[in-house]
């Protein structure tokens, strides 16, 4: 089969994008992360053109260029050379778009996944400063060390039971 004449459906493109990993958290695909907004397929007469629209997790996210390059490579490997990458800021990315399986993969990787509502046992207020389940031992006896961790999208916490520090993927 000559792969250059193969036409792909939108659903097949989505499947291919599953193989593109987040460069900073390589256990997550860009679909797990929820940053792919649209896929559009068009026949240009010179071959099939695929347009993939992505949204940044953070304004200054340095991984965006690499993600765009990796999408091109992934599609080129199956013979799609006409690739357009679009960027869209609104609606702004939210951790709600992260898939459940993505959250499980994060946890297995040692990063606490975003949790929407944690009630502080002491103050009774909703906050992300205490009670984030430790990805190592599962204890909720944990506290915030810093609002910013190894990347802008993560905060640094520590477990008061197993004493391990851990990254927490912030609600956004």
């Amino acid at each position, binding site marked *: 089969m000559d792969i250059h004449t193969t036409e792909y459906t939108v659903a097949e493109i989505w499947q291919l994008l599953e193989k593109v990993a987040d460069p900073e958290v390589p256990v997550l695909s860009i679909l797990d992360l929820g940053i792919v907004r649209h896929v559009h397929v068009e026949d240009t007469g010179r071959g099939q053109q695929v347009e993939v629209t992505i949204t940044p997790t953070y304004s*200054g996210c340095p991984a965006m260029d690499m993600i765009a390059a990796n999408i091109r490579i992934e599609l080129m490997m199956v013979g799609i050379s006409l690739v357009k990458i679009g960027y869209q800021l609104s609606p702004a990315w939210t951790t709600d778009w992260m898939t459940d399986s993505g959250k499980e993969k994060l946890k297995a990787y040692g990063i606490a996944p975003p949790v929407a509502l944690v009630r502080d046992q002491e103050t009774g207020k909703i906050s992300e400063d205490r009670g984030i389940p430790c990805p190592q031992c599962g204890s909720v006896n944990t506290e915030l060390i810093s609002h*910013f961790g190894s990347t802008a999208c993560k905060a640094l916490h520590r477990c008061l039971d197993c004493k391990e520090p851990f990254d927490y993927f912030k609600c956004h």
Partner: protein
Amino acid sequence: MNDQTMDVMDTNKASATNPQLLITYTLHVADNAVIMSQRLSEWTGHGPALEQDIALTNIALDYLGQARNFYQHAAMLINEHRLMPAFAPGRTYPLQEDDLAYHRLEHQFSNHLLVELPNDHWGQTVLKVFFFAHHQMGIYQQLLKDPDPQVAAIAEKSLKEVKYHVKWSSDWVLRLGDGTEESHEKMQKALQYLWPFTGEFFEKTSWNEDRINLEALQQVWDIEVQSVLEQSTLLVPSITRFQTGGLKGIHTENLGFLLAEMQYLQRVYPDSNW
């Protein structure tokens, strides 16, 4: 809302979509973010603890990202309307984001004076972030409803980020203000020094008056900032917030040195790329 206020709002909307005013405003927001980012990144590798070094670097990165979004948008508008701003010589259409950040001269930058001031000690840097982050939160909240959809989209994105900056810097102002005798004294001095520069946040110009409700901006800023300062046992200075000039391109001597470093590579190797 009566008919008269409706009329006023319609007029405001019309001038808020004027491309020249929109470009000037967009450049101003971008300038603020890029200079703030450049200044804060001087702390990289020098923070008092690894976690805080990382925190400030991440905040600097957020501002860099916001600056890029606004410069990209300004470049797009400039190219579309053929409205070249005041500029270093030798630049031609189409302009790119880098032209705007790296090829404008100091008097062509319209950032607030506060963001170009040297960092000085950690407490003073934190206080500067605290003032600026509250200002950013205020303008982004208003820009969510901007008639220009891309400005509104960038504001929506940025707002989520500055909320964390507000939280982080407020925690530090509290910790140091209501800390030891020495930290309290240093914070009070820093406050005395920086306070006169905060009046510029609410200064009216031909290009911001129809885009931002400056009275509302100041009202919210004053209440929120003063409430944290009071909790931190710091006294709000009674001096007037008199420092001014940035919006007209009249800067402190600090900006030139900052730009000399930031723009060096693009000045020596114009249009070089990664």
